[in-house]
Structures are given as structure tokens and as C-alpha cells.
């Protein structure tokens, strides 16, 4: 549904987005992750027709965002990373303004506004002035405003940034529900754990480039990806650190209790090597009571990429 090809965006001399390509399937949730200045917001704004790219193509279905911006806009719902609202409008008036601007009749508007407010749990606040809302509530009012014209593509820049934990869970559930209804959602966030549970696919950006992109399983199961081995011993085994040092794919031994029976070891080899490591340890005489492979989380990946891990640079 969203196709970005060779996107380049320059701000004067500065290259904000450099040769970015990715696609988002219809009815799925795609998460853009990256440190500040990675180019996430710029990318979302370009898709939202708010920034004209220096080069490249963006398509929503068959509609070119660059050549048919009016048509593209009618398909888009956009929520920026901070919630500007018309302070002196009531919440329902705020939503009604946009339903009206999208050409809906008075009856249609009322129906859509009621539905959007109910979806975002703002029905009780409908007559409140926007300026009296908390940041989280403003965020919801923005989401309601983005829903009133029933867009097929939703662009959400840091949607959970100002929400309390419950509201964040509600937002996540709502976005999942919208995706299940067939809406395509592109979301950026720094709350990485939130994206793990929400997104079907993620793309990690750094310095305007897409470093890694795909489904969570594809990324975390990648053979180049590091994983953490959590090991519990019956009793301490003093030779273990030396053995780890000699092992080419093991590193970062960390004792997690004082009795030296709980360890974490970083393994950077292939998945197939893991049973071999366990059997080698048993062969050494280590009394293993528990051996767990902790799947690398998106957050680990993110930190790895943010710190400039060479394996991802090679991939990209």
C-alpha cells in the first residue's frame, strides 16, 4: 500500500534522508525506529505530502504522492509527533472542522465525529475546550481528527510519546484494530517495546538510511544477530570465564548472582551452534541446570544499530 523508492531529501547541504526504500503491505502496521535525527519524521512528512523530496518516488497504492498530491491527501490520516490543536475549539468542533474540510455533509459529519470520539474514548470530553486537555488527551483528539475522514493510510509520528501506560495500551489496541479493519499504518516511535507488540514489520533508520527492515522474526532470527545465552549452574565452575574467552563466538560473560551460578553470555554465531555450545559445556563437566536462549529484542537491535554495529552496516 505504501511504497517508498530511492527517497532522498536534502535540507540545503544536509541530507536528511538518503536513498530510502521500503514498502508497507495493506492492512499492516509498519514501525520506523531510529535515534533522533535518523530521518523518521522527515520520511513521514514526505509521505504526508508536507515535504517535497529532492528525489525518489512515494506511492500509496497506485497514487503517486508527488504527482497526485490532492488524491493522496484524501487517503491519508496524519498525526504529528507533538499534539498541536486549536486551543479555542471544543473537541467535537475540532474533529468537525476536519470532517467539514474533507467535504462531508452535516449529518455525515456528526456520525463520523461521534464514531471517532468513541473510538478514541473522548466522548465524555467532547464539549471540553482543546486547551483544557492534557497532552495525552490532545494526542487522542488528534487521532480522532485523523479518523474522521476514514483514511486508508495512517501516518503516526510518535503516537505513544505523551500517553500514560493505560492510554498507551489502549492506543496500541486501537491501532491494531484499525489495521485489522484494513487500514495501513506507518508508525514511528522511540518506545521500542511498544512497536514490538504492535508492528508486523519494522525498519530501523540511522543517518537517513534504512539499516535493517523486515518482520520482527526475520530480523531477530538473522544469523548475524547476537543472542544472549542465560545459563544456571548447580555450583560454581571457576574455569568457565577462560573457556568463554577461548571460544570464538562467545563473549561478554556476566555473572548475575553473587554465588557465581547464574551467567549471561553473548553468542554471535549461527543458531545451529547453540546446541553444540551446551554439549561442549557438559563435556567440560559443567553442571548445567538451566540453559536458555533469549531472543534478541528490538531494543537490543536498536541499541546495537545506534551504537554503529558493523554487522548491520555490512548488511546495509
Amino acid at each position, binding site marked *: 500500500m505504501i511504497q517508498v523508492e530511492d527517497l*532522498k531529501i*536534502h*535540507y*540545503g547541504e544536509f541530507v536528511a534522508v538518503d536513498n530510502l526504500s521500503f514498502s508497507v503491505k495493506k492492512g499492516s502496521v509498519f514501525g520506523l525506529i531510529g535515534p533522533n535525527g535518523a530521518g523518521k519524521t522527515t520520511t513521514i*512528512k514526505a509521505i*504526508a*505530502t*508536507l*515535504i*517535497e523530496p*529532492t*528525489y525518489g518516488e512515494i506511492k500509496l497504492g497506485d497514487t503517486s504522492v508527488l504527482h497526485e*498530491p*490532492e488524491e493522496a*491527501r*484524501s487517503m*491519508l490520516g*496524519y498525526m*504529528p509527533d*507533538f499534539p*498541536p*490543536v*486549536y486551543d*479555542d*475549539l*471544543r473537541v467535537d*468542533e475540532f474533529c468537525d*472542522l*476536519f470532517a*467539514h*474540510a*474533507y*467535504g462531508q455533509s452535516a449529518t455525515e459529519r456528526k456520525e463520523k465525529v461521534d464514531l471517532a470520539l468513541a473510538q478514541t474514548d473522548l466522548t465524555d470530553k467532547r464539549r471540553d475546550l482543546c486547551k483544557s486537555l492534557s497532552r495525552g488527551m490532545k494526542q487522542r483528539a488528534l487521532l480522532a*481528527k485523523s479518523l474522521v475522514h476514514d483514511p486508508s493510510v495512517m501516518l503516526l509520528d510518535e503516537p505513544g510519546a505523551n500517553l500514560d501506560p493505560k492510554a498507551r495500551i489502549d492506543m496500541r489496541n486501537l491501532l491494531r484494530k484499525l489495521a485489522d479493519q484494513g487500514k495501513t499504518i506507518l508508525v514511528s516511535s522511540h518506545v521500542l517495546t511498544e512497536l514490538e507488540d504492535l508492528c508486523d514489520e519494522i525498519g530501523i533508520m540511522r543517518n537517513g538510511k534504512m539499516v535493517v527492515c523486515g518482520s520482527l522474526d526475520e530480523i531477530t532470527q538473522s544469523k548475524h544477530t547476537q543472542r544472549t545465552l542465560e545459563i544456571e549452574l548447580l555450583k560454581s565452575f571457576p574455569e568457565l570465564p577462560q573457556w568463554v574467552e577461548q571460544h570464538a563466538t562467545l563473549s561478554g560473560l556476566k555473572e548475575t548472582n553473587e554465588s557465581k551460578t547464574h551467567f549471561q553470555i553473548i553468542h554471535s554465531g549461527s543458531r545451529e551452534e547453540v546446541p553444540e555450545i551446551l554439549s561442549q559445556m557438559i563435556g567440560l563437566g559443567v553442571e548445567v541446570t538451566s540453559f536458555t536462549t533469549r531472543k534478541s529484542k528490538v531494543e537490543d537491535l536498536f541499541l546495537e544499530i545506534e551504537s554503529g554495529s558493523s554487522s548491520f552496516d555490512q548488511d546495509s
Partner: protein
Amino acid sequence: MNPLILKGIRENLRLKHLVAAGLFSLIVCSTLYLTAYLNGSEGKWDRDPITNDWVKSESSPVNGARNAFTFLLALQGFYLMFLGTGRVASITAEERESGLLDYQHMTPMNPLSKIAGYIFGIPAREYYMFFFTLPFLGHAILVGKLPLANIIQLYSVFFCSVILYHLTAHAVGLVVPKPRAASWVSRIVVLGLYVVLPGLGQAGISFLSFLTILPTYFGKILPILQRDGIEKSSRSVYETKITDFWQDVPFFNLTISPTTFTFLMQGLLILTLLVTGYRKWKNQSLPALSKASAFVIFFIFQFLLLGCLWTFFDKGEASGLIGQEFSANSFKGREDNMIGGLILVISIFFSLSLLFILCLVNICCPNRHLYLKGIQRVAKFNLPRIPRTADESSGLGFSLILGLINLFTYSALINLTLNSDFWVLGSSFLSLCIIPAAILFLTICYLQASREQWFNLGFWGFIGLLWITPLLASLVLGVGWGEENIGVILKLLAINPLSIIPIHWISENSEMIGLPQNLSQDFNSAILFGLLIAGLFAIILQARLFYLRKK
């Protein structure tokens, strides 16, 4: 109803606003109106021509209403032109800063509806306050026996000006990249366009005066506001002069009513601002004007300049209060003063044209970013080159054509002057045209090259250094060591192309003015120095631009 106007009404006219703004307007308006009315209606003390005693005339409600009308008009102008313009500029800038404007960019509303929504929706409260002045206006018209036709003309121009000011404020908010700067720039632009430029109108370029409602007020309203029973002959000289002056506008060999001319002038500006607003609402990254619309606007501008200055260069008759002072008829037999007036008017013409070209070069010539975008698109679509009329294409040809249009107008004025029975010049057509033409084209070359290789700071910094700094240095030198450094001062002045015309014209007519020989040589050297500097910058910057693009 337009959604944005409805939004403006909802935001600005809730019950508390209705009560507060309504009461405020009513109290201020009634105080002002009643004070002026009572003061005006009182009989005035005057000397009896027969007995030479002081006698008081009878009180007159007609005089009271006529006296109060001007105050009422000023209050209405304060609400809509001052408060309303400020509000449109600041809200547009605020919405741009906060990102609210992005939401509006994304709605599928027609750009013109969005513009209408902003300029009528944001000042909803000011229009509401204006509404409270209407009963007083009705009273003034009825009691003061003011002709309805004149009042309708005045208020048509009044609302046209209000729309123009609000549109200017809105366009500035959309165009100026830094939102905080937008509110300042809009104030400066409104002040410059509608206060400073109309001032220049008084020096002969009459069309500039028609950016305000003053010509219609002086021409159509002031004569009907005279105190009842007072003869025309007993009015003050200044009042008579100002009233008579605005009765018609000389344009080529025609005369046009001030109201019609105001509509023409303001219509041109409204058209320009609408084109800008439309483009910016359609796509934020587009330049404010396309090359084609810039041509049309510059052509109309030059046509208006030519039309207004026609009678001055042809018959020596300048319009404007100051202009009349240096009309040829005022200086019969004093040729040095006559030429002074001519140099002043031609300098204003040249400066205005060059500043207009500078603005259009700044708007329509692509910066490096836009040019790069064009190159990449050409590669993508396999085009041989960037289309000439595209925003991304090089602006050299465009800028040179602007120069040609300007040169054509300038030569027409020179030709008119040389064939006129009123002006006596000590130089030929060619000698008056070649130097200004050379300066004009060299300046255009370096303006275009600098615009296309630098971003805003670099471009305006360069213009500031090259045009303003030598002027300031010459000022210091002139005040401190003027007599011994006249040659240096003239050279510094000549770096700024706006100073070239007076320097060149004085040099060309040095004998008529009675300039000493050595001073005349200083003027000639200054012109050559100005040409040299402009030529050097044009060559260096064009070569650098060529090299950058090759790279």
C-alpha cells in the same frame, strides 16, 4: 459555510467574546462619535465682517455628523486594518510554527477556499466589532446628508484595502520560512507597502498612492465633509490643494477617477498575493511566484510606472504634492532646478524597478537545492534539460528578460523627455541609455548568480555587504572628510547600482548644472568604478556558478 470561517467564528465569537468585544466597541465608538459630533455641531465663533464683533454661529447637527464621520472611519480602520491585519499575520505564523497549518495543507479544500477561510475567519472578532460602528455610520450619513454614491465608493475601496492588508499578512505568514520572523516581516511589509510607498507617490509616481484609501477619501469624501454654510474659497489652502489634487489621476494622456485607479492598483496586488497564496497552499516548497506569473506582474508594474510618469516626462507635469513642486512649470528659467526634479523622478523609477527585479530574482531563481532537484528529475524522466519555465530551471534568461522590459520602459521615458518641449537636456539618447543598461544587466547577472549558488543568508548577506556597507562608509566619510574625499565617496556610492542613475545623470548634465571640471571628472571615474565592480562580480559569480554546476 467555509469550514475555516466557521472555525474562526467558533474560536473568536463565543458568548464571552461577543459580550466583551461588543461592549468594548460600543463604548469606544459611542464616546468617540458623540464627542466629535457634539464638538462639530456647536456653533463656531467668528468675526462679523460688518461690525467686527465676535459672534457665534448657530449649532448644526449636519456639521456635527460630518465632523464625526472621519473619526468613525479612523476607528473602523483601526479595527480592521490595524487589529485585523496583526491578527491574521500572527495567527498564520503561529499555526505555521505549531504545525496546525500542516493539517490544513493536507485537507482537500481548494487553495482559494483556504485563503478565504483564513482572511475572513481569523479576523471574525474585528468584523464583529466593526458591525457595532454601523449604527453610528448610518446616523452620520443621514444627519450629515452625505451622498450615498460617494460613501459606497469609499467603503468599496475600504474593504478592498482591508482584504489586501489581510492577504499580505497571510501571504507573509506562508512565505517567510521562520515563523517568528513572519510577524515582524508582515509588519514591515504592510508598513512599507502601504505607508512608505504611498509616500513616494507624492513625488510623482502617483500610482503608489493608490495602495491606501486616502486618494478616495481626499477626492470623494473630504469635499462633502466641509462645514455647512462655509464657502469653498474660505477653506485652507492646503485643504483645497489636497482635495483638488485627488479629483483625477493622470495616466498616459488620460485621467482616471481615484476610486477606479485604487481598484486597479489594489487588484494587481491582490492578484499577486492570491497567486502566491495559491501556490504555497498547493505545495509549500514551491517558490512564491512562477516565472510566468512574475513576468506578467513585472510587466504590469512597468506599464503602471510608465503611465503615471508619462505626463511628467512629456509635459513636465508631476502629480503628487511634492511632485508638483518640481514640475517643469515651477522652474521656468531655472534649468538647474528643473534637471534636479527630473533626476529625482528617474532615480526613483530606476530604484523601484531594480528593487522589484531583486525581489523577483530572489523568489523565482532556484537555489542550489531546487536546482539539484530539477537535475535529478531530468535524469529520472530522461529529459534533455530542465524545462525553461520550470521553477527548477536557471533564472538567467528570466532575469535578463526582466532587465529588457525595464530597459524598454526607461528608454521610452528618455525618448519622451528628449522629444518634449519642456525639458532641456545636455545629452543624447544613447549616452543616457548605455551606462544604465550596462549597470542594469551586470547587476542582474551577479544577482542571479549569487541567488543560485547561495542560500538565503549568503545571498542577502552579499547584497547587504555590497549595497549597504559602501553607502554607510560614504556617509561616514561624507560627514567627516567630505570635501577632500569627494572622489572616494562617489566611488563608494557607485558600487550600489541604485546610486548610478543620479551620478550618471549629474555627470551627463554637468555643464547645465554648473559642476566644476574636477568634480565632473570625479563623477565620471565613479561611474567607471561602479561598472568595473559590477562587471567583476558578474563575471566571477557567473563563472563560479558555471563551475559548481559542472561539478
